[in-house]
Every structure is written in structure tokens, then in C-alpha cells.
């Protein structure tokens, strides 16, 4: 594999050559070329492309022309601008990393003006991730996005004049699970009633794909997952990071500026897998599985536990091409097993 990778780099190939075959799937109204996407907050397509421009211009161009994800999930956007948490914000821990970034973003107004147009110009579906501190925050952001999308060319919930509606290329993911902001968000996602209330309120204003991203920092996730699905979520993203703590090895004081952070990386994979397995058995909506995905075996495991789509998180930090690589490897893995994607999904339950 490594030989192959090196050969590809050495050959100066700038594009993916071909998309993986036989992996086409759907997430509600959105068609995906394969089931591998990125987890929100772990991958900034435009920043990576800008960085790559100094490394290899062809690679940077290819990154935007042929992004390494089946759908792109940008960072969380909130109603108002946020600067994020004080540094230090990250630390590597055994088998993963602890982060407390704190959802820095320019706010919904800036997002609609500056980010949305270039996101819509990507040759991939996008799943916009929104956060807030109250039910009203989520509704406000979702409504603003809908207004903006309805106003785009080919916008509006109905397909008109041969234009493809944005419904088939834009989804929404509710971040009700960030462990690094101290009110709203995770406290909403920790409570079935609050979760149901937020989901149904957003459902009123958002006609497209609606995902709720849940936190694993709860005693029992199943009632929360059921509440989200019953309130109108089209799918669930499982899971956000696990709340954790690390100390500075010299001072023996909390290392992160915000004291606690969210654990991600291979260390959390078995933990995340358990949530996907349990929720899949209890709830009948598609799941986006994530948590420590780094290898094609991890992808197979999440699919077998019931995820229809798998997201790469922390692993994409060290290798931004990872989702594409995993898709190519998944094609080969399914071929080796003489199985289709649909046959693998949920296998662990049968």
C-alpha cells in the first residue's frame, strides 16, 4: 500500500483518477458517490487547499476540484461570531487527541455572505453543521440558511426550470453535542425532551436532510436517539467527542486552556462503535458513524454496526486525503468479501 502511495505521489498525479465504484449510496435526498465523509470541525477544505498550494499547486487545485470526501461537512456555525477557547487547545493523548477548540466561527451572517457561496460551488453535496445555546439559536440559523439557499440559482424546495433543487445537495446537521462550550449545545443533546424540542423546531423551518449529532457523554443514548428521530430527524450522527482531561506533565495542572476537552482518535473507536450498535438496534433512521475511524477495517466495523455513512475525524488531521483513500480501500475490501455495501450495513446485528 505504501509503495503504491509513493508511486502515485512520485508520478505527480494531481487528481484521483477515478471514483470508487459500487459504493454509491444515499443519505435521505442526497446522493453520495461513496459512504465516506468528514466529521465537522476536523477538516477545512479551503484552508487545506490553501496550505497545499505552497506544497504542490496541482494537488491544491485537485483538492477543490475533486475533494476527498463524498460530502463535505464544514465547521459549526453559530448565530453570533465566536473566537473560540483560549490556548492551548489540543494535546495528543494515547491513541488519540484531546481538543477544546470552542466552535470559533464568524457567525451566521458572515457564513451566508462569505462561506455559503464557495461551499455551493464545490462539486460535492454539503452538510452544514449548526450550533447554538438555545432552541431559538438553532431555528434562527437554520432559517437563515434556508432563506439564503432558497435565494440561490435553482433554489427553492421545488425543482423548477430544469435546475436541481438545493435539497439534493445541501443537508443540515445539528451540533447538540459539543463538549467544549459551557451552555446550550451538549446540555440540549443530553436531554431527550430538549433534543426533541430542538429537532422539531428546526424541522418546521428546514425542508432538507436533517441530522442530529449526538453526544456520547450520557448515561443512555437510546432515548435521546429515539427522541430525535421521532421529532423528525432524518438521520443521526454518532458520536461527538468524549469529554476528558489531561494535565501538563510538568506543572500537573490542567493542560488545556479550557481545562476539559473532547477525546477523539483511534482510542475512542470501540466506545463509539457501541453507541452505533445500540442506536441502530433501536432506531430506524440512517446513521452516520464516527469515532476514531482510521482504517478500512474501522469503516467496515461502523457499517456492520449499522452506520450507512462513515465520517473521518481526527485521522484526517494527519492525512487530509484519508476519506478518499478509505473509499478506495473499501471498494477493494467489499470485492474481496464478494459483498455489496448494502449487505455489509447492519451485518453485526444479523
Amino acid at each position, binding site marked *: 500500500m*505504501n509503495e503504491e*502511495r*509513493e508511486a*502515485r*505521489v*512520485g508520478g*505527480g*498525479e*494531481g*487528481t484521483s*483518477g477515478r471514483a470508487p465504484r459500487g459504493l454509491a449510496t444515499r443519505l435521505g435526498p442526497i446522493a453520495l458517490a461513496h459512504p465516506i465523509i468528514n466529521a465537522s470541525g*476536523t*477538516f*477545512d477544505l479551503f*484552508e*487545506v487547499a*490553501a*496550505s*497545499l498550494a*505552497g*506544497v*504542490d499547486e496541482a*494537488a491544491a487545485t*485537485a*483538492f477543490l476540484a*475533486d475533494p*476527498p470526501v463524498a460530502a463535505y461537512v464544514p465547521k459549526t456555525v453559530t448565530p453570533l461570531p465566536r*473566537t*473560540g477557547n483560549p*490556548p*492551548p*487547545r*489540543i*494535546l*495528543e493523548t494515547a*491513541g*488519540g*487527541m484531546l*481538543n477544546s*477548540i470552542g466552535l*470559533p466561527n464568524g457567525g451566521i451572517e458572515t457564513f451566508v455572505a462569505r462561506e455559503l457561496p464557495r461551499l455551493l460551488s464545490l462539486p460535492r453535496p454539503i452538510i452544514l453543521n449548526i450550533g447554538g445555546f438555545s432552541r431559538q439559536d438553532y431555528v434562527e440559523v437554520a432559517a437563515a440558511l434556508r432563506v439564503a439557499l432558497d435565494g440561490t440559482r435553482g433554489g427553492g424546495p421545488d425543482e423548477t426550470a430544469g435546475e436541481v433543487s438545493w435539497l439534493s445537495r445541501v443537508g443540515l446537521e445539528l451540533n447538540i453535542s459539543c463538549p467544549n462550550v459551557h451552555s446550550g449545545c451538549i446540555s440540549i443533546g443530553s436531554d431527550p425532551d430538549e433534543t426533541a424540542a430542538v429537532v422539531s423546531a428546526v424541522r418546521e423551518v428546514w425542508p432538507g436532510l436533517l441530522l442530529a449529532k449526538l453526544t456520547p457523554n450520557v448515561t443512555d443514548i437510546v432515548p435521546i436517539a429515539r427522541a430525535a428521530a421521532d421529532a423528525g430527524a432524518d438521520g443521526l450522527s454518532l458520536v461527538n467527542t468524549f469529554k476528558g482531561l*489531561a*494535565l*501538563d*506533565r*510538568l*506543572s500537573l495542572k490542567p*493542560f488545556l*486552556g479550557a481545562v476539559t476537552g473532547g477525546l477523539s*482518535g*483511534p482510542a475512542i473507536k470501540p466506545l463509539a462503535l457501541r453507541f452505533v450498535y445500540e442506536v441502530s438496534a433501536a432506531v430506524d433512521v440512517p446513521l452516520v458513524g464516527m469515532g476514531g475511524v482510521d482504517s478500512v477495517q474501522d469503516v467496515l466495523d461502523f457499517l456492520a454496526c449499522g452506520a450507512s455513512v462513515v465520517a473521518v475525524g*481526527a485521522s*484526517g*488531521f*494527519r*492525512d*487530509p*486525503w484519508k476519506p*478518499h*483513500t478509505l473509499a478506495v480501500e473499501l471498494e477493494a475490501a467489499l470485492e474481496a468479501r464478494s459483498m455489496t455495501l448494502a449487505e455489509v450495513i447492519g451485518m453485526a446485528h444479523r
Partner: protein
Amino acid sequence: MKDRSLATVLCSTQVGSMVLVRVRVSGWRPARPGQFAMLQAEGSSCFLPRAFSVHSQGEATPDGAEVSFLIAPIGAATHDLATLSPGDRVWTLGPLGRGFGAVDDMRRSGGRAGSGRLLLVGGGVGVAPFLLVLESLLQRAIARPEDAPTQVSVLFGFRDAAQAESLALFVPAVDALCAAGVPAGLEAICEDGSLGRPGLVTELLTESVRVGDTVLACGAHAMCEAVWRVCRQAGDDVDVWFSLEAGMACGIGSCLGCVMTMADGSMARVCREGPVFAGRDVFGESRHPCAAPGPHGGGS
């Protein structure tokens, strides 16, 4: 699709308590002085790569370029990189970030901005980026002598004799600069007195720095603060640039983990807006620096 590049280790040399690792990287685009690369030993048990200044680089050929990094083994990830053997491989992504643009600014002004004197201040493994700075200055001195600085002073501070052995890596470049007609000197000081009087690099800086100088510094945050104080005391016209370090997961602007709080309260990513920052942006006008320190004791 492009991928992270697997570089091949050509040689690994112990230099006191540090290790000089030279690798061949395919498709390497020449780094500007002060730029960095993310490195991770193939098969490393650590999850994330680490950021390293480009120490030196050879000419790019169709087979790639020879690039070297100076590594201080302080944790598991750096240990894995420091114990590589020829033929071993390293995941490499770079060059990244903004380098020492001040070097180019001096060139544009024909080396006559301010005093035309350039002071390179390094502490510990923070000396790493300055060989590429010297190599770049040498190329310029040969190609366009009129654009070279009027004088180059290399001032290094080390903890002990083992760390100070890295000084030898810089002697040929300083000699070559002198031979090319640019007056250049190399001074070093050790905290434990291994090189004569015990002390900190800021003592050398205090003796050298004058109004109009350009100062490039790289080292621990405490050293950078002290360098800023010394330069501010020397006068407002000292142009100071710092190459900063912070723990980062990606090095390419995605994780937002490497931010520093700047003097005006804004956040800047060390990987994208840096790693080289103007002293005023980091520490403000005050002689009492307030920028938050980067991670120090926790990472590896």
C-alpha cells in the same frame, strides 16, 4: 489523488543531544527560511505528526530534494524520528506556513533598511531554522551582493554542552558568508557555563543589538519574551520577528488547535498566519509581554 509524501531517510546523525535527520522528499518545493513541515515516522505509535522547521535543503531534482531537520528527542514522537535509520521512511507534508519574510524585505530595500544588520537569535533546538536562513543569505550574497545585509550576527543560547554541539552545524555556513563578503559572526552561550561564562542568549543580544537592526528569533516562549524586552529597550526601530511553536494536529489550517492569543486579543494560527510573527503582533508595544505561551510540557 495526491497523498502525504513518504520521504526516505538518507542519514541520521547524533549531534550532542539532538539528531540531524536528512531525508529525500519527492516533489519537494523549496522552502523559504522559517517554513516548517509536518513529520511522522512511518509506523510511529504516536497518532499525530509534529511540526519541524526546515533546517536545510538541497537542490530539487526529478528524484526530489534532500531536506534536513534538527530534532530534539523529548517525547515519544520526536524519539521515533530521532531513532530512524537510513532507508526508514517518514510521512512528510511541507513546506508549510509563512517564513521569515523580513529576510526578503531587507533584500527589497537593498539590504539598506535600517542598519542593514541582521541578528539571528536561537535558543536550544530553536536554532534549527537558521541554517536555511544562512544558506539563503549566502545564495543572495553570491547572486546579488548589493542586496545582502551589511552584517550578520548569529547568537545562540544552549542549556548545556550536549545541546551546544549543534553549533558546529552552523560554522561552515557562517564561514561561507564571510568568504562571500558578508561580515558574519557566530557567538554562543550556555546556561551551565560549558562555553565560558554561564548565561542566556539575551545577554549576547543586549551586547549586540542596535537601533535599526533586524532580529529573527526562535526558541522557547520565555526566551522570545526576553528577546522582545531587550529589543524594545534598545529602541523602537529594532525590527523583531519570532518563529513560534505550538502544538498542532494538522499544520494546514484545519484543526484550529495551534492558535496563539495575539497582543490585540485576536487569535492567530501558528501554522497559517505563522509560524513567523512580527514582535509587535505577538507582544504589543508594552515591555511586559502578555501573549499566552504555547504548549510546552505536555506534548512530545
